């Protein structure tokens, strides 16, 4: 690894804390970002020469603050900036002092605030994600544009508009109380999951370009967990992302199409990510404070533990989905539960469970896919055909449609013969 590479890694690791502290200081996002940028430029010159500072974040905050204050002072006077050495001299002493003043609680709220401003409820999900990647992760506009498959200027505009919206909304800079902190934490966790899903839901050519979003989301989740080490839901979120990302090498076939969970080559799953995810679930369970991320992580954990699809503990998955239904009632959760129920109690019980969902899921591909498969298992071929036709009409990708067509072809060929097993959702947890 070259000098440049470790400095790069150190700068991006320090970024959330440094930008967060500069934001608290200047109360203006653009000023904070510019100050951090300037500090990074100086770090690129000073660190190879002087060696790494003891606390990179404190160094960047100190230098960034001085540079920005200097800018503001000189703006009116049109004077040139001082040489680097002037700004950086005596830094060692100052750095120690500032590092001592920045206690952990302070920087925790700084980073949380930085994450939280990206989750403003007025911002559409895609804008929240773009903003977080730009401000917190420090990805360039070009990198984000590439991940979202849009032009650079369009992304630039989107981020600028999102920033303006935030500036108008105003951000609370006082130290949050416990209820506000919990609220912020929940919003930030949801935003991190959005970042992950932007990367994870991609297929085809977009998949490789979007994969860095999954890595970035995991980095953010770990960051959040370092700040809130005792929060079981943050453990659950991190575990969920790790366990889902572990399947990435097996999720797409050679054509970039999604491979269903039960058809994946489990030997390709990343054992290290799975081990870490399971360790976090274990930790979270000790708190006996279950929440939706923990339950979803536990479901993903049960899939990860099954060396072969047929070893899956569907009874336990059924119980976990029942728990999730109580926490977050949603027809999609019930639909997922029905897949587990079909495995344990048979297709008739599963069908009874999903029939009441029809009005609410009438536009949902997976509803008709699951319904068709259940009907087929029950030997009700004609009804199954109708459901599969509806599914194809609602398919989002060619792979989804092709998968349903397999069922239809079999129906055509055999009349109603060997019923296929109920398939899980392709995006299944």
């Amino acid at each position, binding site marked *: 690894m070259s000098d440049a590479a470790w400095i790069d*890694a150190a700068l991006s690791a320090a970024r959330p804390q440094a930008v967060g502290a500069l934001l608290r200081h200047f109360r203006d996002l653009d000023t904070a970002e510019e100050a951090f940028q300037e500090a990074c430029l100086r770090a690129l010159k000073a660190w190879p020469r002087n060696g790494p500072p003891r606390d990179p974040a404190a160094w960047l905050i100190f230098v960034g603050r001085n540079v920005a204050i200097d800018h503001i002072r000189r703006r009116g006077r049109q004077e040139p900036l001082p040489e680097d050495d002037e700004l950086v001299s005596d830094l060692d002493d100052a750095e120690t002092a500032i590092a001592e003043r920045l206690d952990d609680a302070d920087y925790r709220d700084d980073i949380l605030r930085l994450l939280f401003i990206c989750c403003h409820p007025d911002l559409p999900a895609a804008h929240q994600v773009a903003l977080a990647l730009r401000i917190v992760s420090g990805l360039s506009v070009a990198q984000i544009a590439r991940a979202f498959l849009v032009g650079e200027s369009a992304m630039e505009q989107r981020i600028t508009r999102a920033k303006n919206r935030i500036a108008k909304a105003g951000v609370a800079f006082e130290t949050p109380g416990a209820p506000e902190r919990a609220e912020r934490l929940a919003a930030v966790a949801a935003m991190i999951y959005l970042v992950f899903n932007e990367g994870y839901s991609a297929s085809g050519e977009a998949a490789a370009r979007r994969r860095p979003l999954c890595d970035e989301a995991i980095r953010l989740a*770990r960051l959040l967990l370092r700040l809130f080490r005792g929060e079981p839901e943050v*453990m659950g979120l991190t575990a969920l992302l790790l366990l889902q990302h572990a399947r990435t090498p097996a999720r797409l076939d050679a054509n970039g199409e999604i491979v269903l969970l039960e058809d994946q080559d489990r030997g390709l799953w990343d054992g290290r990510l799975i*081990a870490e995810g399971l360790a976090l679930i274990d930790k979270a369970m000790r708190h006996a404070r279950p929440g939706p991320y923990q339950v979803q992580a536990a479901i993903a954990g049960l899939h990860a533990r099954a060396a072969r699809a047929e070893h899956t503990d569907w009874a336990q998955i059924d119980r976990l989905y029942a728990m999730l239904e109580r926490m977050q009632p949603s027809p999609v959760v019930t639909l997922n539960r029905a897949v587990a129920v079909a495995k344990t109690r048979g297709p008739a019980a599963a069908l009874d469970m999903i029939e009441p969902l029809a009005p609410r899921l009438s536009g949902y591909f997976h509803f008709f896919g699951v319904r068709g498969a259940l009907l087929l298992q029950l030997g009700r071929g004609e009804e199954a055909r109708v459901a599969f036709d509806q599914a194809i009409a609602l398919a989002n990708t060619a792979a989804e449609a092709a998968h349903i067509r397999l069922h239809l072809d079999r129906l055509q060929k055999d009349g109603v013969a060997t019923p296929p097993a109920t398939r899980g959702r392709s995006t299944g947890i």
Partner: protein
Amino acid sequence: MLYAILCYDSEAAVGAWSKEEEDAVMDRLAAVQRGLAERSKLGPVARLMPTTAATTLRKRDEPLVIDGPFAETKEQLLGFYVVDCDGLDEAIGIARALAQANPSQGAYEIRPLLLLRPGNLPT
């Protein structure tokens, strides 16, 4: 004499490596390890999960279980090597070779071992 070489680094910085950078570093470290193994100088090697996966038990009358590492530090213990050396100079030499293979920030703490039980875990 047996020494432990304890590897400390900022896990946030290590976590910011790209996959290519990580693979390159791991390849170079593996080469150092192979050299040590060929000279029968390499004992157990461990890489730890991030401190987010750590749990700490504080000894009290009623021991207290806490999420996270035992102390919040700028750099974290990320792994360790056990090596067999003729003396401290050689151990420092090995740490230098590791540092060359992984020139990020951080530090190696070299601690002589008082006792090593190989244990009976399958490797």
